[in-house]
């Protein structure tokens, strides 16, 4: 018997990140006490190498790792997005970690490991690797949320994130077990084929399994009514990690959701589409109304990320087909603005204090004009004003919903976007129309964070003015899913 030949090339980007993570950990171990290990430069080098590997893989046309881990146009699109998110987070981190006194080597290792999990999550074509990737991502993030050991808020965030995360993983796993029982396989394609001709018992198992999967994914993407952890965790976690969670985890979770529901469960679309539509409606409404009531900026952005999960779900209802490319495009726009928004708050942190209330950012434009302008760009894009990525993205999301016959979803989405203008633009008004209160308490914007924020703002504006290249790529990625 000859051992099976496995082509490991498709997993190279993830492997590079995992090895870099270990190298950062070792570098920390060999650094004398009291000195800083070169965690950020190592991580940046690893992430750039992984990005090159993704480019080479794309030129080679992707590949397949033993039928469980597939690198097609869909995974490559998400690979580029997730590694880009990682780059921005690592650029934002050094100054923030120093300002808050949590500059430790394991930070970068855990960030890289969670990125490995995200890469796996969007590439898995099989339910075992889906669950393993999900947990690789989540376990690293539980630890990262609680990295600030002296702050009770950070510990509380870690505990709440762990409990809801493990709870949702349990639902997801139980759903996977039922799908396995119904179809006799854990491969997405085989599950999809088996469910096309179900017997009566199989159909019941499959419907229950689909429901449980939806609950599990609902927690992961923070959709109402499974969102209650998000504001607390986003507020308590270190701000750079909040940026990673809101941009990276949401992208990876939506990637896995699209792949699982698109490849394994299209036969059950008639039963899950109304459920997803209902989730989308309550998520858009509750997310936006919740954000209205917030005075803490991190909490406000957390509710806004809940609301955006609702807009994205409205297009997931229209998947497969035009809905997928709309979701893919919007995830890029959404990642850029969230990295920017949370990143701007992190960049201003000084001596453990961050700007968290409207008063804290009052008059920011007169003292940090560039940063205030960037933050205004992100907030305008979140609102969905034309000539920003958010407008183009929302246009495609709602058009997908209308084309699929869910006009009511688009109407609610547009109405809620109008509501959202109030709490986003309130921040812009505070930055530009009010006088600064008291002394200049903000940190000077560090160069690496400035680069990261500038990049995010450039992506937002570029996608708003000229979305074609990314849109073409998203269309290609969506087609590889069918």
């Amino acid at each position, binding site marked *: 018997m000859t051992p099976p030949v496995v082509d490991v090339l498709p997993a190279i980007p993830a492997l590079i990140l995992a090895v870099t993570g270990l190298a950062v950990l070792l570098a920390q171990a060999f650094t004398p006490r009291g000195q800083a290990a070169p965690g950020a430069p190592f991580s940046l080098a690893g992430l750039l190498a992984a990005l090159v590997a993704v480019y080479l893989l794309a030129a080679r046309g992707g590949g397949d790792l033993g039928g469980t881990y597939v690198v097609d146009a869909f995974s490559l699109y998400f690979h580029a997005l997730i590694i880009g998110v990682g780059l921005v987070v690592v650029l934002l981190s050094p100054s923030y970690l120093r300002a808050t006194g949590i500059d430790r080597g394991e930070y970068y290792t855990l960030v890289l490991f969670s990125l490995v999990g995200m890469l796996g999550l969007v590439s898995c074509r099989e339910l075992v690797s889906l669950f393993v990737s999900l*947990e690789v991502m989540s376990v690293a993030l539980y*630890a990262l949320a*609680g990295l600030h050991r002296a702050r009770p808020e950070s510990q509380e965030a870690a505990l709440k994130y762990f*409990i809801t995360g493990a709870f949702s993983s*349990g*639902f997801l*796993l139980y759903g996977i077990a039922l799908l396995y029982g119904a179809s006799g396989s854990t491969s997405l394609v085989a599950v999809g084929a088996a469910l096309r001709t179900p017997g009566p018992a199989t159909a019941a198992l499959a419907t229950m399994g689909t429901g449980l999967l939806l609950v599990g994914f609902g927690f992961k993407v923070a959709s109402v009514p499974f969102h209650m952890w998000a504001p607390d965790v986003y507020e308590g976690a270190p701000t750079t990690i909040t940026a990673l969670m809101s941009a990276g985890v949401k992208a990876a979770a939506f990637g896995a959701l699209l792949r699982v529901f698109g490849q394994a469960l299209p036969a059950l679309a008639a039963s899950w589409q109304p459920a997803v539509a209902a989730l989308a409606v309550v998520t858009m409404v509750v997310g936006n109304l919740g954000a209205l009531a917030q005075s*803490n900026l991190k909490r406000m952005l957390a509710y806004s990320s809940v609301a955006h999960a609702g807009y994205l779900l409205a297009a997931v209802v229209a998947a497969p087909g035009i809905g997928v490319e709309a979701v893919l495009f919007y995830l890029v726009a959404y990642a850029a603005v969230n990295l920017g928004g949370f990143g701007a708050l992190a960049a201003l942190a000084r001596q453990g204090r961050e700007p968290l209330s409207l008063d804290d950012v009052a008059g920011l434009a007169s003292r940090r004009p560039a940063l205030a302008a960037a933050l205004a760009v992100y907030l305008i894009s979140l609102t969905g004003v034309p000539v920003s990525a958010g407008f183009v993205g929302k246009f495609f999301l709602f058009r997908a919903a209308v084309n699929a016959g869910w006009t009511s979803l688009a109407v609610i989405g547009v109405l809620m976007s109008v509501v959202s203008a109030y709490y986003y633009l309130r921040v812009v008004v505070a930055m530009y129309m009010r006088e600064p209160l008291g002394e200049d308490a903000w940190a000077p914007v560090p160069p690496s964070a400035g680069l990261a924020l500038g990049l995010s703002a450039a992506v937002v504006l570029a996608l708003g003015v000229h979305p074609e290249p990314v849109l073409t790529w998203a269309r290609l990625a969506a087609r590889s899913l069918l």
Partner: protein
Amino acid sequence: MTLQHYLLVSAALFALGVLGLLTRRNAVNVLMGIELILNSANLNLVAFSRYGTGNLEGQLFAVFVVVIAAAEVAVALAIVLTLYRLRRTPNLDEADILKG
């Protein structure tokens, strides 16, 4: 013993796990609830593999889940311990700074 028996036991374990997670206030009890949920799914996987599907994928999956559950609990206990050091209580109701 048929497949139905295993599925019933597994569903009962799952319900007990969810109940424990929602009603217990001690963090360690909540962790036990999470373990019950994961293991109820494991029982399902193994039962389906043995009586239903005729392949070993389910049993293989269960081994992965056991390993992951161990890693998860290691991190969870670390989080509970650091919170205990700050607050001197394992009671989840008292972790209530973040709200609104």
